[in-house]
């Protein structure tokens, strides 16, 4: 045996070592996009805590203001105001925030489904930005007292998944991804549950008949 012959033979023979199949580009890309969306999502929720703190404070301030405005006895002292208004004001603030969020989410999902059913080539682009915003709010809602309600928590978790999928849609609007989102909406009755949870009003009424 000679070193030269071996070194000529070796690279040729080694080409079969762990010979890779064709690169599964699309499948890996979808997973990468999903992983990145999930990470971005966590960063959005955990990173700028201050921004959310300010948001929560604003909502609570609105609730407190409404609570004060609803006090009918102008001579009531600060102690009486706190005793009567503090918890209901917070509850009202959460209700307002939840109502606004549910209405916006309902409008987004209804619009998304209607467009994808109409065979639009790429229904993802115009919805993905809104979905990202709502996704962040969903996490906020899941961390709020609203999630103490088991039914609402389940709905929020389903919405989190659906919104994450929509947020990942690329401009090309992959039909399989859109189909998968719509299947998820159907199977989990997300829109029905969302409408049940949404307060009655112009927002909900406006979307009726769109499906």
């Amino acid at each position, binding site marked *: 045996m000679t070193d030269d012959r*071996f070194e000529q033979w070796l690279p040729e023979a*080694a080409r079969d*070592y*762990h010979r*890779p199949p064709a*690169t599964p580009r699309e499948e*890996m890309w979808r997973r990468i996009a999903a992983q990145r969306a999930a990470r971005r999502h966590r960063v959005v929720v955990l990173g700028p805590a201050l921004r959310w703190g300010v948001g929560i404070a604003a909502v609570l301030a609105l609730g407190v203001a409404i609570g004060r405005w609803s006090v009918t006895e102008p001579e009531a002292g600060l102690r009486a105001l706190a005793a009567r208004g503090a918890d209901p004001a917070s509850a009202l603030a959460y209700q307002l925030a939840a109502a606004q969020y549910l209405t916006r989410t309902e409008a987004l999902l209804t619009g998304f489904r209607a467009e994808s059913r109409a065979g639009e080539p790429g229904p993802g682009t115009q919805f993905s930005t809104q979905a990202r915003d709502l996704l962040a709010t969903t996490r906020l809602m899941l961390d709020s007292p609203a999630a103490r309600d088991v039914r609402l928590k389940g709905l929020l978790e389903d919405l989190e998944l659906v919104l994450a999928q929509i947020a990942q849609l690329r401009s090309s609007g992959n039909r399989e991804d859109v189909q998968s989102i719509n299947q998820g909406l159907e199977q989990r009755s997300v829109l029905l549950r969302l409408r049940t949870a949404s307060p009655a009003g112009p927002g909900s009424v406006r979307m009726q008949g769109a499906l």
Partner: protein
Amino acid sequence: MDERELIAKVRAGDGAAERALYDAHVDRVYRLAYRLAGDDELAREFTQDTFVRAFERLGSFRGEAKLSTWLHAIATSVALNGLRKAKRFRARETDLDDAAAISGSRRAAEPDLKRRLAQAIDGLPTGYRTVFVMHDVEGFTHEEIGATLGIEAGTSKAQLSRARAKLRATLADFAGEWIS
């Protein structure tokens, strides 16, 4: 679009540029991951992790090396760390000395030689195997290997030489196969 422009667009959050960057490099990253892992599922996992990390860290890429070298450095780091954790790979790993002992048993046909060669490569120490796979199997240059693994090109050459010597010793029983 040149690489610098592509990187700038990815940093600015351009989804199409992200996909273009992925398309330009995914084949080589996946091939390298597969060659090191020998398992499709692990190779996919390593490739995905490589791109997720690359997109996250692209802001810190200073352009001192080529983007492909930077990506391959992430890929080898992800793959080698992942393989240390992967029990499946450990179960398949054959100690080089064991392989040498088996080699004395009998000569066999070409398919058996290739199987034995694969076992012998699996049994190389990690550093040798990585350099061998990158150079002799995937065709990286010593300069590229050095930049990817953070070693001198000379070290890469020395490791390749030792890897080949170990393989030659392990496969000594099959000498006739390559001489002919």
